[in-house]
Structures are given as structure tokens and as C-alpha cells.
């Protein structure tokens, strides 16, 4: 470790899904903000147990879809009526009717892009490095162990060890940045 190594957080290991579920509820109720749960598989109800609000990704999706729809409509209006009027099949130069399929597809396309982009941005991904990778124990998070990490930046970090011990952690270790 370098001399100026800072504490990243406290990593607690749990051995069962039920154990970490209960522990998450306790950490949530203790008022922690900067913490996360790592499990080998999704645990139903964990969002509520962690006190997570509904994801904000939906707003990105809405904005993306909205942009897509109006891009499609405007683009077709501009090209087919305004810039270079072209009669196709005896139809009007512009009507939302025939512009709809393209606008609709663009709604979906940009909506999907915004969803993916929004998800990555909110999760601060891609991220090539995480201090938790230093922990040998943490590798089990993809196998059969369950982890809670409370970050050092949380205002209540001082009592974190006590809270995790009370929650029934099988092992607790300090992770450095």
C-alpha cells in the first residue's frame, strides 16, 4: 500500500440470501446513504430492503423517445415538403400518417439509446476499476457469498462496524482505496 492510502469502505460478508436481506433492512433503517449490496443473483424485494427509490432511467427514456418522435416528424416534413416537395403515390406532401412509422421507430430507437445511456451514466459505468477488487474475499460475490459495503464518505461511517456486526456479518474487512 502506498503511504497515502485512504479508506474506501467497510466490507461485510454474509452467508445467506435471507441474512443479507435482513442486514440490508437494518443498514437502511440505521440511516446510511452511501452503501451497496453485492449478491451472486438478484434477490426479490432487495430494492425495498435497501430503501431504493424508483429508478430515474425512465426520465431519460421519455426524453429520448420524445426527441425521436419529433425528429422523425420534423425530418420528414423538412425533406418531403419544405426542402424538396415530392409527390409519392398521390399522397399529400406531408401528413403525420405516413411520417408516423418512421417517427415511431425513431421514438423506440432514441428511447432505447437514452435508456442505455441513462443507465450507464447513473451507474457511473463503464468503470474499469473498483477498490473492492483488492479484496480476495469479494471474489465470492460472483459465487456463493453476499456482501454489503458501506463507504467511508458516508456521514455515519464511524458506527458502520457496529451496525454490520449487529446485523450478523460473518466477516468484516476494511478496504483501502
Amino acid at each position, binding site marked *: 500500500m502506498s503511504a497515502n492510502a485512504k479508506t474506501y469502505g467497510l466490507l461485510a460478508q454474509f452467508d445467506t440470501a435471507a441474512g443479507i436481506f435482513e442486514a440490508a433492512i437494518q443498514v437502511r*433503517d440505521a440511516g446510511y446513504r452511501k452503501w451497496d449490496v453485492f449478491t451472486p443473483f438478484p434477490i426479490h424485494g432487495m430494492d*425495498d430492503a435497501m*430503501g431504493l427509490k*424508483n429508478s430515474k432511467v425512465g426520465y431519460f427514456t*421519455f426524453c429520448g423517445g420524445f426527441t425521436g418522435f419529433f425528429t422523425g416528424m420534423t425530418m420528414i416534413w423538412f425533406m418531403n415538403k419544405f426542402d424538396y416537395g415530392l409527390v409519392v*403515390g398521390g399522397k399529400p406532401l406531408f401528413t403525420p400518417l405516413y411520417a*408516423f*412509422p418512421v417517427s415511431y421507430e425513431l421514438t423506440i430507437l432514441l428511447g432505447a439509446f437514452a435508456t442505455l445511456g441513462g443507465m450507464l451514466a447513473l451507474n457511473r459505468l463503464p468503470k474499469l476499476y473498483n477498490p473492492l477488487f483488492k479484496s480476495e474475499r469479494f471474489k465470492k460475490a460472483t459465487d456463493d457469498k453476499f456482501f454489503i459495503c458501506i463507504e467511508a464518505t458516508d456521514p455515519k461511517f464511524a458506527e458502520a462496524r457496529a451496525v454490520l456486526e449487529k446485523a450478523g456479518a460473518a466477516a468484516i474487512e476494511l478496504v483501502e482505496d
Partner: protein
Amino acid sequence: MNFPVLFKRLLALFACAGMLTFASARLLAAEHAPAAPAHGETVAAAHDAAGPVGTTAHHGHAETKEPTFLEAALYSYLTAYMFCLSIVVGAFFLIHLHYLFDAGWSVPIRRINEQLASLMPYMGVLSLPILVFGPSIYPWMSIDPATDHALDVKKILFNRPTFIGVIIVCFVLWSFMALRFRRMSVAQDKDGAAQWTHKARFQAAWGIYVLAFTLTVAVFLLMKSLQHQFFSTMYGVYYFAGSMWVTLATVYGIMRILAHRELNGVISKQTIHYIGTLFFAFTVFYAYIHFSQYFLIWNAAIPEETFWYVKREAGSWWEVGLLILFGHFIAPFVVLLRIDTKMNLLVMGPMIAWAWLMHYVDMTFNIMPVLYPNGLHLTLLDPLCWFGMAGFLGFIFWKNFKTAAAFPLKDPRLKEAITHHEVPAPGAAASHH
């Protein structure tokens, strides 16, 4: 007056109104010879001052002719009938969905669907006036195929014996399937055996093909054949999409009403959320299907297809079409977009009533322009038929609903539906640690 009593009395009232309408329509049918309608026909006189009823005994559908009282009654009846059939068929389909996806969350509402779908035999009986008075409803039934090319090429399907036969076969099949679903589900209430789930799943697997095929044919005959020249392969799925929409609204409403009564403690937040989500999904799906049908016809611009929509742009039918666009799709789409509105009864209560109205408008838009080409023409018969039929079916539904448990008591997936997302709220857990 407590709720069940009020509910029962309302239903009984609706049922009586419906039977009265029906009886008066039949009586008038018996004396439809050219006669002055001045005496006794208060209903007809009150709402239909536009023209003398029954000026001709002939039931051909020349467009200029004023509809007879029998025709007006039958068209209102058909509109109400297709509305009610939507909910019964939609609930029937939801049972299939439940088993095919091996869903857990929809276990608590499955009995509602089963009881709704079990109205199928009654729908079969209620189709009798349509079968008996067919020629007064469907113009093609009184046209000689030799004089009408469009009918001639479709006469394999569009002839009376086939019409009657197909509808009977459909209702026998659907009744058998729906009642079997309910029987297996109720049997599981006693022993909790997984075999009932397995059997029902097997039936759902073949049943969904039967339903898709028979429903398409039935809707072609009952509704699309009103204008036998029309072509649209999407018509079946169009009716289906609207049906699912109004069914999900209905099931949502019934579920919320019963959530603190018969279904107390079994309706979890996620069940409400998921039904709301499906309701939203079918808002979009209906728009997608109806737009696709319109767009393909508009784009191809073939007279054999466009006439159907041209007719529906005449007079106030144009506004009705716009009402469907904005009221059936855009407004519900915006309202249902957020999660919290889908869970909020203050929003969803009016939304359900609106969905019922919009679906009725949709059925009217499909059926009524044939009889009233100049624009929307509402008569007292419309609400009477609707309230009568919906009241009668609602009464039977409620009667049946009380004969069995309100939800599948011993379904293997019931527990997960009730509990698997239940987490104590912040602060609640701290007390016992």
C-alpha cells in the same frame, strides 16, 4: 345501505331494464307491419322523432331508408353484446396468459377472471337474438350472392347456416374451456394438488390457438360482416386488443373493490402494479393495431378497403373517430405513463369508467355507421341494452363469485404472489431488533 346490497339492487335494476327493452323490441317485431306507431310506443316516440317507425316491412338496408325500431334495437343490442363479449373473452384470455407464463403475481386475481370467463354460456344464450334476427342486422343475409360479387366470393363463410354454425361452435368450445378452467381451479381449492395447475397449463397451451382462431372468425362474422365488402385481416386482433384493454380495466376495478373485502390481504402492491402495467401496455397495443389497420388501408388506397373508413368520416362519425384517437389512446397513454398513477385509485377509478365509455364508443364506431350513415345517432335503446346486458351479466357474475372462494386458496404460487416482495417499511424493522 351497505355496499353489497346497493350493488345487488343496482344489478337487479339493470337486469329489469334490459329485459323490458328486450320484450318491447320483440313485441314491436311481431307487429312491424306498416302501422302508425303513435300509441303505446313511448320509448320509440320519445327518442326517435326523426321518422315513422316501420314504414316498410322490408328489411333491406338501402342507405336512405330510416331504420325500423327492430333494426335500431338490434344494432343497440349488438353494440352492447360486443362490449360485454369483450370482457368475457378478455378474462378468458387472461387465464390462458396466467398459465402459459406460469405467473405467480396473477394468482390472486385468477378467480375473478375465471368467474368472468364462466359467463361464456350466458353470452352464448345472449347471442340468440343475433342468430334469429340476423337478416335484420346483416345486410348480406338478404342479398342474393349472384347479384353481388363481393358476397359471391365470400359466400363460403358468409351464408346463414355457416354463420349460425360457427357462432354455436365457438360458444360451445369457449364455454367448455372456460368452465373447465374454473372447475380445475376450484378442485385445487380442496386438495392443493399441483396436477390441476399442470392440467390447466396444458389446456392453456392448446386453448390459446383455439381462442385466437375462433375469436377471429367470430368477430369477422358478428361485427366485420356488417359490411361484407370489407377486407382487413387485422380485424380479429383489433377487436382482441380493445377487449383486453377494457378487460384489464374491469379486472383492475373489481380487484380494487374486493381488495379490502373478499380479497383482503392477498392483493399485493405488485399485483396492482402489474395489472396497471398490462392495462398501459394494451393502451399502446390497441393504438398500434388500430393505427396499422388504418395506415395500411390509407396507404394502399384500394376502394374495397377505404370505403370502410370513408363511411366513418361522414358527419359526426369524424368526431367520433377523433374521440377514439384522443380518448382511447392519447389521454390514457399520458395518464398511465407513471407508476404512481397506476396505483392511485383516485386516478384509476375515473380511468376505468373512461375505458368502459371509450370501448363502447369504439364498438359504436364499428357497428353503428352501417345503420346511421349520417353521423352518431344515440337512442335510449343504447343505454337500455347496455345496462340491461351488463347488469344481467354482472348479476350472474356476482352470484357465481360467491359460490366459490374469492381467490385460488391452495394454488402453489399463491404464497409468492402475496409475500415475495413484501419488505418492512423504514423504521418498522428496528422495533424487533
